């Protein structure tokens, strides 16, 4: 097999040959990979149907286990002006299909949607987002697509094809779903599924707001609704435990979900970002139930006690103190909310301390990730940005509909804007993170509402890195929910978070100058594993010990 020359190889080669490269401060190259011809269809209408402005999910996952990340993009569908009953979104039209792009060894992509069995997402479904997880532990990642309509679970058959198993699995949900994520809340080794739902809304009960400006209505115009927790029975079917678990005890306007064990009790907790109201932090009681503790824990509201327009969310440790923190992306004149985990079951609002007051007060954020883009050992921040209202400039000259994504590098827990290399403003929505070209540097795919996605390839640099794949035996096969420590940094294994998107399951660590690493894995099963003197700059698979 031909070995690809990575950016890092190239830099090292240049250095060895004494060739000086022109200095560039941008971290990413905006690429248009051959074969990736997706164009998101949201079909905005004068009716200002709220669904028009919310879609655009993306997943980075290796569906065929060839070692290269593939890209799945969620399309939305066709709307008419006005919509009639029964609602139909022409998803049989190929322009409105979700698309799976298989990555080829040369970095180009091939559209394999049809042969994979993923064409036509159902005429009654207006697409939103995607979650990825190997729910049946067969070693092949499965897809869960969220819609306004009914959601779809596609089982990965392992031969390049998928089968719609929604009805058998019992996970169609209904209503308006947004972000979803696989996680193992009861540590039984089978991935469960959490589905956020935005509100009770349909095209027949839509409204137009803004008087003469004719724009989308704020969420409070529509009733809140419940989220859904599906427990994986381990036989290919799921059980709706929303009521029994306590998840459905609260109604929200939920857009984002992220997972981590914030109090280190061995059970994965759930953070849900809500739009225009308080946020939810569901503490996992370890007995199949959850208690919502956001107000007590300090993650419900800002430091001023004000609600947030919560959209995307990430639940990872940004300040390397070993405890997962929470970031929520919001609308302008709020600030992206950063809740620092203080370690006693409570959080403190640290947006201003961390520099986000300057970076985000005029922006609207959606997809979000804490990833170490410069491999210096600190997780940086990336946010897909754009206002909800496509005519916001008319209403408020100080705001912009399209914005470039935010890249902010982390300097000891304080974020500073960096040059992402993206010069054009887009209507950013979903964002997924992963190492697309396996060069040890994290890349990003950002979706643009009603447009083509951006593929941001990391230039690379000098820092060392380590990429860890978990292979659960007693725990779920991909080790989702594991807490992995590398040289003092912590990552919580998850594909969820961001906004309506799913990221590379591999855990990426920047090591800075360190060429060796100590790796510690706390598996969901309770197993604890330590690997000493692990060499940097490699893709490492860590297999869970079979017995305790």
């Amino acid at each position: 097999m031909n070995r690809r020359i990575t950016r890092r190889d190239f830099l090292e080669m240049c250095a060895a040959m004494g060739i000086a490269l022109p200095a560039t401060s941008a971290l990413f190259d905006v690429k248009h990979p051959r074969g990736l011809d997706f164009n998101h269809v949201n079909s905005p209408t004068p009716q200002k149907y709220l669904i028009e402005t919310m879609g655009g999910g993306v997943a980075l996952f290796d569906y065929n286990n060839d070692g290269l990340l593939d890209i799945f993009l969620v399309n939305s569908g066709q709307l008419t002006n006005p919509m009639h009953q029964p609602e139909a979104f022409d998803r049989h039209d190929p322009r409105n299909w979700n698309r799976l792009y298989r990555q080829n060894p040369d970095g180009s992509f091939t559209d394999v949607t049809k042969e994979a069995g993923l064409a036509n997402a159902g005429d009654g479904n207006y697409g939103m987002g995607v979650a990825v997880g190997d729910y049946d532990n067969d070693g092949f990642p499965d897809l869960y697509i969220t819609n306004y309509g009914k959601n779809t679970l596609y089982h990965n058959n392992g031969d390049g094809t998928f089968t719609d198993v929604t009805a058998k699995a019992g996970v169609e949900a209904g209503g308006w779903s947004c972000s979803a994520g696989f996680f193992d809340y009861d540590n039984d080794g089978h991935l469960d599924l959490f589905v956020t739902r935005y509100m009770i809304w349909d095209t027949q009960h839509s409204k137009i707001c803004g008087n003469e400006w004719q724009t989308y209505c704020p969420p409070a115009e529509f009733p809140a609704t419940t989220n859904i927790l599906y427990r994986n029975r381990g036989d290919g079917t799921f059980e709706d435990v929303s009521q029994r678990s306590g998840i459905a005890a609260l109604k929200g306007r939920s857009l984002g979900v992220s997972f981590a064990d914030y109090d280190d009790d061995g059970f994965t907790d759930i953070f849900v970002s809500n739009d225009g109201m308080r946020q939810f932090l569901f503490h996992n009681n370890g007995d199949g139930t959850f208690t919502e503790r956001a107000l007590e824990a300090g993650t419900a509201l800002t430091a001023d006690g004000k609600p947030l327009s919560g959209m995307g969310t990430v639940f990872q440790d940004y300040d390397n103190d070993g405890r997962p923190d929470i970031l929520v992306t919001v609308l302008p004149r709020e600030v992206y909310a950063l809740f620092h985990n203080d370690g006693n079951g409570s959080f403190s609002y640290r947006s201003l301390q961390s520099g986000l007051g300057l970076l985000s007060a005029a922006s609207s954020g959606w997809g979000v990730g804490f990833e170490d883009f410069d491999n210096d050992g600190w997780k940086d921040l990336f946010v897909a940005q754009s206002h909800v209202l496509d005519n916001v400039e008319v209403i408020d000259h100080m705001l912009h509909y399209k914005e470039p994504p935010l890249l902010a590098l982390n300097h000891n827990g304080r974020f500073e804007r960096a040059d992402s290399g993206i010069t054009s403003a887009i209507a950013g929505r979903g964002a997924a993170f992963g190492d697309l070209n396996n060069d040890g540097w994290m890349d990003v795919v950002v979706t643009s509402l009603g447009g083509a996605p951006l593929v941001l390839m990391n230039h690379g640099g000098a820092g060392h890195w380590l990429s860890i794949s978990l292979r659960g035996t007693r725990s779920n096969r991909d080790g989702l929910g594991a807490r992995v420590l590398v040289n003092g940094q912590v990552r919580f294994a998850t594909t969820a978070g961001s906004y309506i998107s799913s990221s590379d399951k591999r855990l990426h660590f920047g090591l800075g100058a360190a060429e060796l690493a100590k790796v510690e894995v706390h598996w969901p099963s309770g197993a604890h594993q330590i690997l000493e003197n692990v060499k940097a700059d490699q893709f490492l698979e860590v297999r869970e010990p079979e017995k305790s």
Partner: protein
Amino acid sequence: MSGVLLALLLALQASPSPALQHLHAGLEAEKSGQLDAAVAEFQKATELDPELAVAFVDLGDIYIEKRDYADAIPPLKRAVELSPSLEGAHRLLGYALLAQGYASEAIPHLQKAHAEDALGIALLEAGKLPEAVPVLQKALSQNPNDPDLLYYYGSAAGQLSKQVFDELEERFPDSARAHQMMAQDYAVLRDVPSAEREFLEALRLRPQTAALHLELGELYARAQQWDKAEEQFQLETEVQPGSAEAFYRLGEALVQLGKFHEAREALVSSDQLKGDMPETLYMLGKAAASDGDDSLAQKSWLHVLKLEKDTALAAQAHFGLAGIYRKQGKTAEADREMDEFRKSQSSAGHTDDSPK
């Protein structure tokens, strides 16, 4: 109005004249709501005695009562000719003229009648804005709950302001003040680049002008450009070291930028310059809490709660105190403060999460 006068006249005369008899009949008709009959009686009175001023006043009055202002004007004019000192006649004539749109003509009559409310409106309608504003202000002080007066006062003040600014622009287009005024207009329109340009030009022309840096800083703050806002507020505190507002705004900008220690210093200065300001105290508490000084935060927020009850700021203070008490392990106090906070939120729709 003229009923008392008529009674006096009738008492003085053993045998009232026919004109007075018609006048009396007119008043009786008016009392019983027969306005047309009253007009006819007053008309006869004026015909029988063309020198009887009171009859002309009553005739004008009854036309006004009938909202027939055009017909009210001639008899009232005749009344003031016959008896220039009749204040009531001047007032009625002023009203009628004003109602017909003859504001300038109404003014002297309303002045003679000391009818401040109508005079103010007449001055406003006649475009005499500098005179209208104080007159309406005086009228408002006598009738503070009159929405019409409030409207006219606001209108007069606004028009006067515009007139003065137009004059400023016309006569001194390149002055610092003209640029400041333009900047304010752009700021209202949320046109940040144009407002910024005009403010900077004003500052170039007159760097030490009070409030210019403050206004530019506020523009930046509204645009969420907090680093630029901080710089301007800092400069304002140098221009106006006695301005509590400048120090408050500087403190607020520094909090947004995460510079909590400097923010505390600015907010303490603001508090010293003007004490008992809830906004300043709340922000001081926020800066102190973020800077790790829970003691000062607690003190500041308790002070807010002494000044404010059932307001958004009081709710925020309760929320902040709950956080501090929870951190200190004072669970009961934290719960109490959180309960207070929740009470304020239940009406604000922030916790729309009931299972219903």
